[in-house]
């Protein structure tokens, strides 16, 4: 019951007018970046990171949480009406949602997405409220070895699950880890990888890397690939409400989507994308009319949209309780915590109890706000889709300048930003995932710290990482994930030889 009291305390802080304003700003901004193709929640948080210098932590995180949740609501609108997903996690929604829109049921698709997001977001937040303190308490028993093994597992998962190839994922991760090495070693105070350059001793700014890869690199890629952008926006006709039949077909997928999304969000499996795919296939399999899939089956919108919101709530669990981000957006949240000198992790619930519970309470509030913003006001967001793509891309780069040069006033930073943009373009061209770079950069220094602490405990004997069952388990699962593609290759090869013995 102590939890309930804590949560009530959180609500009384989050419901203050000023904090409600921050929540409104966050949810509006989040929905907008969700709707707009080319801008995601990760990029938005990165651009807003400098705000942590001027506003207090509670306000900042209330706004960030609104953006985090809001992007999931907004993403569905673009998928349904434009067939171009605003975010990776709304990709699946486009499959059925766009077909529904073409058949004049855009309103039903938008409503099931918004209400499903609300149901899943709220259940997910309840689960977060219930489980986080328990996990945090369990994690208090973790020593540096367990921590390092867990981060190792997170690294492997993030780089092998996202993208097409484990090799390219791991390469991207190592690139991020290397960028994280640059600067002052926080244990000895000596500069590393700075090559005598004083400017590098502060380290590579997360904002520069995230904005360079996501804003600059992505825009060049769009230009190279498509030359121009834009599509036709489907009209929203009929009432923005669901028919009785649509309700009947939606509620089960919402709950199933939540059940898939939340647990997958909590483990390091790359955030909200994979749960949406799983939910889609699950609904397709369970449907009594599988032939409707691909032609506008509402289950295919309701399930995945619930799954991605529940997953976002899930992603916050390891971030708050263990200090381990499992998606780009949560990695940038972690660096926002760091910029306030706060270390997320098991101790957060003790040392920053008021802040944590204010953030959690604000998640409930954000969900209600988002339902109101997205259901009756959906027409307003559709207007955003009328911004011509050339202006949108021009605008993204103007904002990127504000977020980088605006803070440091250094031309060198602007130059580094564009250089990282070129790198991002090359990575996109050859299908290297970008998320592991960001996660490696942010989590790398923490990994090293835990690594050195653990090794020091046993005078440099690496067997410490196999010293406890939990730690061994994390390492083994990580190694298994790393070798999975190789195993699969060997397996299919053997199977093929057995099945078709006469073929070389």
């Amino acid at each position, binding site marked *: 019951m102590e939890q309930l009291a804590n949560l009530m305390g959180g609500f009384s802080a989050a419901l203050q007018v000023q904090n409600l304003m921050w929540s409104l700003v966050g949810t509006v901004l989040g929905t907008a970046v969700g709707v707009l193709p080319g801008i995601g929640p990760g990029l938005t948080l990165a651009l807003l990171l*400098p705000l942590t210098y*001027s506003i207090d932590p509670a306000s900042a995180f209330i706004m960030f949480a609104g953006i985090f949740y809001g992007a999931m609501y907004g993403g569905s609108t673009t998928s349904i009406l434009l067939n171009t997903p605003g975010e990776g996690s709304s990709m699946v929604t486009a499959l059925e949602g766009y077909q529904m829109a073409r058949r004049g049921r855009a309103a039903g698709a938008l409503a099931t997405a918004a209400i499903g997001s609300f149901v899943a977001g709220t259940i997910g937040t309840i689960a977060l409220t219930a489980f986080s303190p328990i996990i945090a308490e369990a994690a208090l028993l973790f020593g540096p070895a367990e921590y390092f093994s867990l981060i190792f597992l997170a690294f492997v998962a993030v780089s092998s699950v996202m993208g097409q*190839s484990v*090799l*390219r994922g*791991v*390469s991207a991760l*190592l*690139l991020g*880890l*290397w960028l994280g*090495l640059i600067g002052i*070693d926080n*244990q*000895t105070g*000596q500069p*590393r*990888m700075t*090559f005598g350059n004083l400017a590098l001793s502060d380290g590579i700014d997360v904002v520069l890397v995230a904005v360079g890869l996501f804003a*600059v690199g992505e*825009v*060049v890629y769009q*230009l*190279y*690939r*498509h*030359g*121009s*952008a834009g599509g036709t926006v489907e009209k929203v006709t009929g009432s923005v409400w669901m028919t009785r039949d649509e309700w009947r077909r939606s509620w089960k997928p919402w709950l199933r989507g939540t059940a898939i999304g939340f647990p997958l969000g909590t483990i390091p499996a790359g955030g909200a994308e994979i749960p949406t795919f799983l939910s889609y296939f699950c609904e397709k399999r369970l449907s009594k009319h599988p032939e409707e899939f691909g032609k506008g089956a509402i289950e295919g919108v309701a399930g995945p949209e619930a799954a991605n919101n529940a997953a976002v709530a899930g992603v916050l669990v390891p971030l708050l309780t263990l200090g381990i981000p499992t998606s780009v957006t949560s990695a940038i949240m972690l660096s926002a915590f760091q910029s306030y000198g706060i270390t997320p992790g098991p101790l957060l619930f003790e040392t920053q109890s008021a802040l944590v519970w204010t953030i959690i309470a604000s998640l409930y509030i954000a969900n209600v706000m988002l339902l109101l913003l997205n259901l009756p006001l959906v027409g307003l967001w559709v207007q955003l889709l009328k911004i*011509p*793509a*050339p*202006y949108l*891309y*021009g605008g993204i*780069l*103007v*904002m990127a*300048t*504000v977020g980088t*040069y*605006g803070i440091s*006033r250094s*031309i060198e930073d*602007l*130059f580094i930003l*564009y250089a990282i943009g070129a790198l991002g373009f*090359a990575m996109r*061209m*050859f*299908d290297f995932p970008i998320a592991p770079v960001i996660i490696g950069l942010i989590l*790398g220094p923490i*990994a*090293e710290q835990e*690594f*050195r602490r653990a*090794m*020091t405990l046993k*005078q*440099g004997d690496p067997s410490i990482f196999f010293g406890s069952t939990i730690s061994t388990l994390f390492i083994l699962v990580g190694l298994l994930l790393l070798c999975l593609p190789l195993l699969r290759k060997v397996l299919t090869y053997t199977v093929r030889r057995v099945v078709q013995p006469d073929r070389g």
Partner: protein
Amino acid sequence: MTVTPSSRMGPVLIATAFILLAAVSWYGVQQIPVSKFGGPVGPRSFPIIVTTGLAICGVLLTLSALRGTMRPEDGARGGAPWQLWLFVAGLAINLLLIRPIGYPLASAGMFTCIALAFGASRPLHVAGIGLVFGFAAYAAFRQFLGIHIGQGVLGTLGAAVFGVS
């Protein structure tokens, strides 16, 4: 799809870049001073692991590039060279002019180039929107967040004409 030498070029370059990075990183590791009084794992251990990883990935990427398993995503290329050059010109304008002429004007220039590169017609119209957007962003950040992005020549002009800056 057959593997032509030209489609191998890009991947080989990327793989080489990783090996080069590993080499640079190795040099960097050698520069890290090691204290005699440090623990069993000093400031070099983790960088050495990362460097080794980069080198291994570089070699594996090279192999994969030579076998042709890594290549640019399939799909038509849409943007013409002039579009990309116009885009780069936009970035260059911002980079070179932001200090002398200030954020709002440099941004407007960059905005115009990028929008035109993406196929916007009516350059004057675009430039107008860029100007409004640049000034709006400048004013919003200054007003609400107290972030002063350089105003360059405009500040000097403003000071001369209105006596403010």
